[in-house]
């Protein structure tokens, strides 16, 4: 394997590892009462966000879901400002007003996590429309979960994207669960056939395998960027944690829970890294560097200040000079 390829592989690994560490830390901070509200972790699903984002440009846009930490971090949001947000601080990326379900950074095309299931899809559709109308070759990505397929917005957006040949990649993260119910008891269509009904090319890949995700995404993105219209990608994956942190998961059987480790996208990559000549020590120092980065971000976030409600009122509407 060439050095460039190794470097790429390491980069993917590092990104996934970062997401993992950030979320593991969030889980602890949440349990300790340092992160308020409720949070949905994407642990086990890091390969999808990472693989997809690895083939995106800064001017490509991403609309995300309630389980959006990975998407945000993969798209490149600042880790400090991310923790500051989830820890409800003024210096947070949304000044503590949005929290976990609304992490966003418009300057890098991260259009936000979203607390409304199914909304990410038409929002990304509109963003793709903007790219098209403005004549750029940027594209938009709509992340959504398997449960979100039951919302009419998927169908409406598949149609509009196909009709208008929009530069939009639909990315379904199929973890088999919608909250506390297996999606198989909620949605009967396969996304494959659904996309087919609208004439949109579809591809599926193993969502545990960041390289498989990146490869499928690269193909889709190349086609979309070349003006060939929308693409649908589906990645099978596993939700390692509860629907939200604190979820006792009584509805999941012990076997499923204990077998989750097998599906770890990080472990999957480790033998490949070894094969590519990455030494244990190198990985070790990568881990340490990321861990230190996360530690530092959390420390910084702890020192953040409480947001000021009165000052924030000025942001309900844009303040213009004119009357």
């Amino acid at each position: 394997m060439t050095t460039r390829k190794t470097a790429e592989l390491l980069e993917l690994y590092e990104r996934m590892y970062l997401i993992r560490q950030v979320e593991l830390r969030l889980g602890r901070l949440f349990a300790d009462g340092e992160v308020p509200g409720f949070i949905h972790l994407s642990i086990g699903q890091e390969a999808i966000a990472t693989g997809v984002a690895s083939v995106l440009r800064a001017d490509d846009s991403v609309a995300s879901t309630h389980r959006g930490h990975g998407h945000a971090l993969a798209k490149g949001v600042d880790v400090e400002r991310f923790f500051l947000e989830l820890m409800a601080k003024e210096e947070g990326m949304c000044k503590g007003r949005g929290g976990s379900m609304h992490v966003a950074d418009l300057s890098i095309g991260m259009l936000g996590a979203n607390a409304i299931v199914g909304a990410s899809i038409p929002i990304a559709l509109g963003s793709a429309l903007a790219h098209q109308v403005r004549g750029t070759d940027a594209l938009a990505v709509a992340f959504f979960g398997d449960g979100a397929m039951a919302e009419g917005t998927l169908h409406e957006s598949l149609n509009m994207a196909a009709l208008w040949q929009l530069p939009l990649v639909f990315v379904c993260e199929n973890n088999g669960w919608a909250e506390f119910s297996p999606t198989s008891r909620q949605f009967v269509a396969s996304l494959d056939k659904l996309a087919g009904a609208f004439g949109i090319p579809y591809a599926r890949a193993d969502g545990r395998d960041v390289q498989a995700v990146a490869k499928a995404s690269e193909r889709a993105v190349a086609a979309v960027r070349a003006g060939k219209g929308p693409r649908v990608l589906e990645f099978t994956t596993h939700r390692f944690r509860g629907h939200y942190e604190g979820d006792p998961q009584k509805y999941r059987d012990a076997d499923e829970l204990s077998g989750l480790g097998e599906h770890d996208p990080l472990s999957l990559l480790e033998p490949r890294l070894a094969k590519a000549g990455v030494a244990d020590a190198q990985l070790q120092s990568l881990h340490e560097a990321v861990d230190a980065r996360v530690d530092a971000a959390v420390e910084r976030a702890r020192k953040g200040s409480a947001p000021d409600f009165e000052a924030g009122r000025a942001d309900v509407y844009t303040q213009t000079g004119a009357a």
Partner: protein
Amino acid sequence: MAEVRFGKAINLALADALEQDPAVFLFGEDIADVGGPFGATRGLKDRFGDRVRDTPISEASMANAAVGAALSGLKPVLEIMFMDFMTLTMDALVNQAAKVRYMFGGQASVPMVVRTPHGGGISAGPQHSQCLEAWFAHVPGLKVICPSNPADAYGLLRAAIADPDPVVFVENKALYAMKGELAEGAGPESIGKARTVRAGRDATVVAYGAAVHTAERAAGQLAEQGLEVEVLDLRSIQPWDEAAVMESLARTHRLLIVHEAVEAFGVGAEIAARIGEIGFDELDAPIMRIASPFVPVPFAPSLEKAYQPDAEAVIAAVRKLCA
């Protein structure tokens, strides 16, 4: 008499309704197998089988399905997980359910209930905390109920299910854990009657839902300061008990309305406008409102605390009213 929590009172009302009327049918997201995100439907599927069903994430169609089901002999009770998601059900409620009876010339009633939780206080953020009841109260054909305690939750939910017309039944999230007495053999309450929570001669405070407790706390403190406030729990918002408010006003000559929803164009506006007209001669001071500011519900606990109307604000308003 037994002490039950608010959530359990809801659960009992649903169980008793299912037991007594085979036409009652419950559906919603994750309400059957796991008993609902707030546990309000726990155990009901075990008892009533297929009359309690989990649905896909398709709020718009679920709500219209409730209309169709009601027209064909069921008494559907739909749970919409957060009131913010009622945005997806507006056609069903407003164009269909509310209109059918009048627009079909009185041929048919639409006996359906939509249960939905509103309100903040748990850092759920801008898309999981809204109080949108004023919208529904503006629509001829709908009824809107918002109980403040377990006994009312039981009695009014029974009444809503028995009612031949469509009812939006709003449950304040912060109340689910609240304990209160529920009489043995309790049945449906009548809809549209306010309740005097505390008698007083100096000012009338009208509230509903969780704000009733804010008003009570304020009244307790005001009493220590020598001001006797009468607290009315509206219980039903559409219709609302104009006569009860007028009767109290005729004694106190001062009126304050308190709710958690946004003040501007909120429920309090109608009460103030109406009483300001028909009670003009009774008023010794302007009618005041204490409600949420014109800002989305923020995530950070510190922001949310500043956002939510509290007893201090009520006290200040009453003191101003009585100055």
